[in-house]
């Protein structure tokens, strides 16, 4: 029903991040942080801590967003169940840890195929008919329903009492005068690994080529023999699988309730748009940037103040560079 012309020409070209967004972003971030150190008027140890915390938190955000950037970028689905899928994978891990007693990181590996299959199922049976008509309100509503469904089925199975999962690597260490806990550092490393792995899949494999082709132009890809529906289902599966990694790595430092993941959905959209639709690298960098904005920003704007900052960044990006940092024009 709506015209599908997004953006492209016109006043969207003001911000020239150019061909080296990574350089531009990191220089900007470093300069801003230096400014915080120099004239921020805060204790240096505290600023260092907030940067380390922000980066580690950003790693978590990146993990959640990497899956979403594929789903939103390739399928155009505004997946409101992203956060609930995160919750679901946490409970899968919880079940594997508390039932058979597997260690948490092994359980995470097992959760990956489970969530992959779930993602394929959702796309194939619930969304395919709607995505092929090109409407975006249909999929939006289905994922909204899915979010409610997942949260409440988890509630029925596990009850709403908070659950926790232990980790063999409990504890923390000091790094540059800041404290970092092992489980968060592992999650950060996981984000980097998933980012690299997915980038390789997208760049080096024939599946990756098909996904990129479908993302660029589904009709065109179909004409050259790509099975678009299969690619859609696989993409959703991969998106769900990376959420499984996120959920698994987050369980050691998260109090599990059936709605714990929902708060991440909105931030993940912010990050995906910031990074550029379909860009795994963009989602990773975007996650780190938002983590930093939130944590360092909280030094000056406590409480929800830093969240207002996050949304302000989001709107600015939408207006000035809607294709995101790494988006193709």
């Amino acid at each position, binding site marked *: 029903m709506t015209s599908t012309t997004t953006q492209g020409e016109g006043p969207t070209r003001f911000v020239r991040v150019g061909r080296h967004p990574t350089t531009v972003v990191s220089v900007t971030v470093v300069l801003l942080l230096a400014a915080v150190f120099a004239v921020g008027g805060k*204790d240096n*140890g*505290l600023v260092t*801590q*907030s940067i*380390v*915390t*922000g980066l*580690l*938190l950003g790693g*978590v955000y990146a993990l959640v967003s990497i899956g979403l950037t594929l789903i939103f970028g390739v399928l155009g689905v505004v997946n409101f169940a992203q956060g609930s899928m995160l919750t679901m994978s946490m409970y899968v891990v919880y079940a594997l840890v508390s039932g058979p007693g597997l260690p948490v990181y092994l359980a995470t590996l097992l959760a990956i195929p489970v969530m992959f299959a779930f993602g394929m199922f959702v796309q194939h049976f619930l969304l395919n008919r709607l995505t092929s008509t090109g409407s975006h309100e249909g999929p939006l509503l289905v994922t909204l329903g899915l979010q409610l469904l997942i*949260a*409440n089925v988890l*509630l029925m199975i596990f*009850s*709403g*009492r*908070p*659950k*926790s999962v*232990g980790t063999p690597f*409990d*504890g*923390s260490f000091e790094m540059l005068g800041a*404290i970092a*806990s092992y489980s*968060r550092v592992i999650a950060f490393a996981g984000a980097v690994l998933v980012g690299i792995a997915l980038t390789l899949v997208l760049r080096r494999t024939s599946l990756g080529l098909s996904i990129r082709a479908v993302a660029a132009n589904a009709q065109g890809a179909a004409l050259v023999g790509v099975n678009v529906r299969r690619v859609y289902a696989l993409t959703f599966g991969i998106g769900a699988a990376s959420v499984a990694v996120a959920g698994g790595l987050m369980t050691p*430092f*998260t*109090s599990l*309730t*059936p*709605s*714990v993941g*929902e*708060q*991440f959905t909105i*931030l993940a959209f912010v990050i995906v748009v910031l990074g550029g639709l379909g860009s795994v690298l963009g989602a990773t960098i975007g996650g780190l940037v938002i983590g930093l904005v*939130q*944590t360092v920003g*909280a*030094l000056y704007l*406590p*409480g*929800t103040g*830093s*969240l207002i900052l996050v949304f302000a960044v989001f709107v600015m990006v939408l207006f000035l560079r809607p294709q995101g940092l790494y988006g193709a024009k």
Partner: protein
Amino acid sequence: MKKIASVMTALVVAGGLAACSGSDGGGSSESGTVTIGSIHPTSGALAGVGGLMDDGAKLAVDDINAAGGIKALDGAKLKLSSGDSQGKAEVGQSEAQRLIADGAVALVGTYQSDVTQNVAAVAERGRVPFVIDVAVDDKILQQGYKYAFRVQPDATSMGTSGAQSLAKIGQDSGTPITSVAYLHIEGAFGDSVFKAFEAEAAAQGITSVKEITYPATNFSDATTQVREAAAAKPDVIVATGYYPDGVLIAKAVSELKPDIQGLYGIANGAFDDGSFPAASGESGQNVLSANYHYDANDERVADIRTRFEAKYGKPMETASILSYQAVEVVAAGLEKSGSDDPEKLREAIAGISIDDPLLAFDGPITFDERGQNENATVIVMQVQGDNVEQVFPQEFSTKDLVFPATAAR
């Protein structure tokens, strides 16, 4: 396709009629039964505690019925009608209206302050007494409502008595406390507890050297906030908030190892919850919590909690005990008034005195002119081993206080 569409439409219409007729069916005329409405968030983000509270109310009804019902009403049996607020104010409101229309003579609920505000307005206009089990906001009872009563202490009184207890703990243990850094959740709850604490603490010679607020959502790492608190070099870090943020704060404190004498929660949703010792592990050890709490030394409480766990398979937390208590308040009101007329019931509850409260309060449950339980207060608990022990004041203690309360590291 066409068929499916028409069948669905027919179903919806038929269902709609069923719902309309269904809701009229209840009625209060069933002889020998008195209906009490219970409204809690049994689905949605707060479903865990909401479910516990609903079960607590159910157990109270079962116990009263097993003991012969309401004697002043010829042994009339109580019936609990449960409503699910889904955590939403407007749903809570329509559930309240449904329960009242179904003949509920009193309501208990609702855990959340905003839902409670709506239900209180409905109860006021429907002239049905509403006994609030849990809902902390001072403002609820500042509307001049006549039909609302609250069993638990409000935010201000918790902040005040939290400060008094902290000062006494310092004096008693010979390590006087002169400064605190205060971490609290954003919003009315955190603000009012903090303000009351700050005022009373100043009177007790404790300076609040740093106030740090954090958001209720999108808060998944407390390290920076705790470090900021520690940077102010306080004697004690105080924290007010809900469950997940409480766990994060305890973990961050144990990781940063600041030079403090303890982490002290006031009205904290985590620190005295039964699942906190397991969730926080080592980092939870010796954490203190000033909160309203069931009286663990009371035999009746122990009995109720044992039977609850046997029946529902989950531990009965304080919130659940409060729901139980709220139903008892209603039952006592029925006994006192000898009538199931809501207005007479209100009169009775307003003048009631329950001498053996299940909670560790300063005295019997009696309501002031606002409807606030005058003797509601907090006690101090401490995580010791796998348990939450009552440690202060002496009369309620189950274990000795460990202070300075630095975790076993």
